[in-house]
């Protein structure tokens, strides 16, 4: 029997605020245990939450950027559960009136682009962290993370393959990064993902029994976990078995899933409106202001790059992977003769060198205008492509203009035919074997002669000119 996989994702994203959602403690990654907590974080008797305006703004901006309808009136609810990571024994969240609903994002899909529905986006506070003692007798609680503002983004069960899940996550991450809503650093936990997955016979409308997958701490592990679970469920179904609804934990080391709890353990969270927080009432003007904060999003940028600069889809995808890279390209391309050449340089040498340096495009000193300048110097024959690669590295370290580097280091291309002819005569005279080989039909021998020329000129000789000169001279 043929099965179709159905996946829905629940993504938690930390909002990029200076302070926590309901108190004025700093949001900082990696601070000493319990050094970023106050009586509100501790759930001390008598303290009250006060909403951070930036968290609200970012949450709404995110909802709008993900094409959600934003509620003009919403509220916070208490989700009651006992666990040491939850100091009040309830989490302030949004239950039946989330700030955003009915959104979508478009992903590339397996064969054609697909729109993935977003059921809801709501604001909530993060919980603390538990460390389990190696002896198994106790756990230690750090509450620094308590109260960090989060949005939870719940997708429709629209994803059909683990790779689509990855695409969806990449797109969400990219959109939220573009909007300045979140860093979306999965390794630091500022983006977290749980997945619901089920299988059903192809053509069946009703959904199969699902399992929930947790603890996937990288995009790669989301794919691994879903692939494992997909195959596990397929095997169970093929053997005539039934899927048990349960929550599973992905184990990175073994690449398998482990049962955390079954449906019978399902919580009764006893949600009710938090009486400590007034309702959120938003005006149209407020929503308009949030909409105005949304920059050009990756999908729009990709489309524009393809249209305005004639880039292939792949190039547009790579160049818009981060907003900083996309903006860099945009400026450079608008000043360059050949935008595709800018794309090639960025995707090739620039990204390669950045990877070597472990840096981001904005962390190196070269400006996009300077890259365009370098490309112009190649075009007008001032330097060769090969020299340009050296110059580029210098630019990315020193931040100097290409022309300044070329001048300082005397790298201007030699295109003086008379001067090159003189050197060529010497090279030909010194390499009779290569000359003989070429005349015997060994095309490769030309390369050797050209190489000698470049060596003699320290790479500055205009390669096209050298090629033509040597061929001409050999023919004579």
């Amino acid at each position: 029997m043929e099965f179709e996989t159905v996946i829905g994702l629940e993504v938690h994203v930390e909002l990029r605020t200076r302070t926590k959602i309901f108190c004025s403690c700093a949001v900082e990654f990696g601070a000493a245990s319990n050094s970023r907590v106050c009586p509100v974080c501790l759930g001390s008797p008598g303290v009250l939450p006060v909403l951070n305006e930036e968290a609200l703004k970012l949450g709404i901006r995110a909802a709008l950027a993900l094409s959600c309808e934003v509620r003009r009136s919403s509220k916070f609810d208490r989700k009651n559960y006992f666990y040491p990571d939850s100091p009040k024994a309830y989490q302030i969240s949004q239950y039946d009136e989330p700030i955003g609903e009915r959104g979508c994002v478009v992903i590339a899909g397996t064969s054609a682009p697909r729109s993935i529905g977003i059921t809801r986006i709501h604001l909530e506070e993060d919980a603390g962290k538990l460390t389990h003692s190696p002896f198994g007798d106790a756990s230690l609680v750090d509450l620094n993370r308590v109260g960090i503002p989060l949005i939870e983004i719940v997708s429709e069960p629209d994803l059909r393959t683990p790779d689509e899940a990855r695409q969806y996550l990449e797109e969400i991450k990219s959109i939220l990064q573009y909007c300045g809503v979140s860093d979306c650093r999965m390794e630091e936990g500022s983006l977290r993902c749980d997945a619901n997955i089920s299988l059903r016979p192809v053509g069946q409308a009703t959904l199969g029994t699902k399992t929930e997958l947790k603890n996937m701490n990288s995009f790669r592990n989301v794919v691994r976990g879903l692939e494992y679970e997909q195959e596990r469920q397929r095997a169970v179904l093929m053997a005539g078995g039934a899927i048990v609804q349960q929550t599973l934990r992905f184990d990175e080391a073994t690449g398998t899933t482990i049962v955390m709890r079954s449906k019978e353990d399902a919580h009764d969270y006893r949600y009710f409106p938090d009486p400590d927080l007034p309702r959120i009432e938003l005006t149209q003007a407020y929503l308009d202001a949030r909409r105005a904060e949304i920059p050009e999003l990756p999908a729009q940028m990709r489309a524009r790059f393809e249209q305005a600069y004639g880039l292939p889809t792949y190039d547009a995808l790579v160049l818009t992977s981060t907003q900083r890279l996309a903006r860099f390209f945009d400026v450079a391309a608008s000043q360059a003769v050949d935008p595709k050449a800018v794309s090639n340089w960025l995707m090739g040498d620039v990204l390669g060198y950045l990877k070597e340096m472990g840096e981001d495009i904005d962390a190196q000193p070269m400006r996009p205008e300077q890259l365009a300048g370098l490309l112009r110097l190649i075009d007008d024959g001032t330097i060769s492509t090969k020299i340009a690669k050296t110059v580029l590295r210098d630019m990315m370290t020193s931040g100097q203009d290409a022309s300044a580097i070329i001048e300082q280091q005397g790298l201007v291309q030699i295109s003086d035919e008379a001067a090159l002819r003189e050197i060529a005569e010497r090279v030909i005279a010194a390499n009779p074997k290569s000359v003989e080989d070429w005349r015997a039909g060994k095309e490769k021998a030309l390369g050797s002669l050209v190489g000698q020329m470049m060596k003699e000129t320290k790479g500055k000789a205009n390669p096209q000119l050298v090629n033509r000169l040597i061929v001409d001279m050999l023919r004579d």
Partner: protein
Amino acid sequence: MSAMRGLGIRALHHELAEGRLTASDLIQDSLAAIETADGRVGAFLHVTRERALTQASAGEGVSGVPAPARGLLAGIPFAAKDNLCVEGVPTTCASRILEGYVPPHTATAVRRIETAGGVLIGKANLDEFAMGSSTENSGFHPTHNPWDLTRVPGGSSGGSAAAVAAGFVPYALGSDTGGSIRQPAAFCGVVGLKPTYGLVSRFGLVAFASSLDQIGPLTRSVEDAAIVLQGIAGWDELDSTSVQVDIPDYLASLTGDVAGLRVGVPAEYFETDMDQGVRDRVMEALDTLRRLGAEVRTIRLPHTRYALSAYYLIAPAEASSNLARYDGVRFGVRANDAPNLLAMYERTRSAGFGPEVKRRILIGTYALSSGYYDAYYKRAQQVRTLIRQDFQTAFAEVDVIVSPTTPTPAFRFGEKADPLTMYLNDIYTIPVNLAGLPAISVPCGLQDGLPVGLQLIGRPFDEPTLLRAAHAYEQAAGFSGLRPTALGEVQ
């Protein structure tokens, strides 16, 4: 003790300003009275003796004697109900589960008084987590009514009311969720004011039912209530439910003039069973108001009979969530013998909470639990809407509403062992909290030697009219001067 006898806050302020008394004198008087008589009353859970003496002398050091410009509360001692957090001072809510807890923060209401130079004398007893109407539910000891030590002082602010009635302090802060300021004020023959919800910051008040709780003063006179309210009212950035309103001059509203004031008497309140003596005193009070030129008329509050049911679902529901944080992890007392986390939670909470608190947590948990939310909690909230509307309709016709504060005067210890019978004590005070209105209880005479309280209810944020009416009545009736005799010469 003699220094403070009979003097209101303004008179004490005058003595301080004139240099006839020092703040230290007042603190010493207060401490001496507590030492002499609190063994019999049990109003305090913790006396902040050293802290108070240090503060009083520090205050004097600044200016010799408190200058009039320093405000009416400067140098004057007060008590705070022990569900108000004070940094560095033990705060227990009269619960074993918080024994030894020392908060790192101070309630805004207390901070405002202390900033104005007021001196905290101690933390007053209450029903555990403010759940009760007799202070019998204190996890530590009961408080006795200074009018009759065999009777309860009411609750849950029983310690605060008894401390004022016994003359230990000129005023005390309490909290009122369903009558917890007004009912003990009535039982102890003092004035108790529950302000409009949102007028006084709840920051630092240990939450019982967040949508109902409000801090207010217990005093010997309406004037003192106005003075203390002036000191604690106003917006606070730490409480999102505190309202940004202009705070009027409450003292200025005490004109003594109620001519033409429209006074509503809710027919439904008088249709309930009520002690005849209470009924008589309230009728006399209405006569007094008429004599003063007020226009008394009957009004309807048709959904009154549902208020108690709604309250006893809403308040426990909120409480079940508010009290979940007492889990033995970050503060308070933990049961030590637990082999795992779940056992630790259950043993800690079962040992730490008293029976009434557990009962309300269970009721509240039930009302919110899956399958019962709509039938209980949600319907209770809908009824709350109807009760608010009842008051809105009534206040289109009248300026204040008058009723008894309680159906009976103070009862004896153990007399209301059945929880539901105890709850019924709050039938006149509870609708006010559900509607978020301001209300005050003022003494309206004695019945068999026990004080009876008259409740006046006002429009939201119309404390000026409420205080004006209460003050005019008080001046005409003259019952605020009555002092209990059970403590003999302590007074």
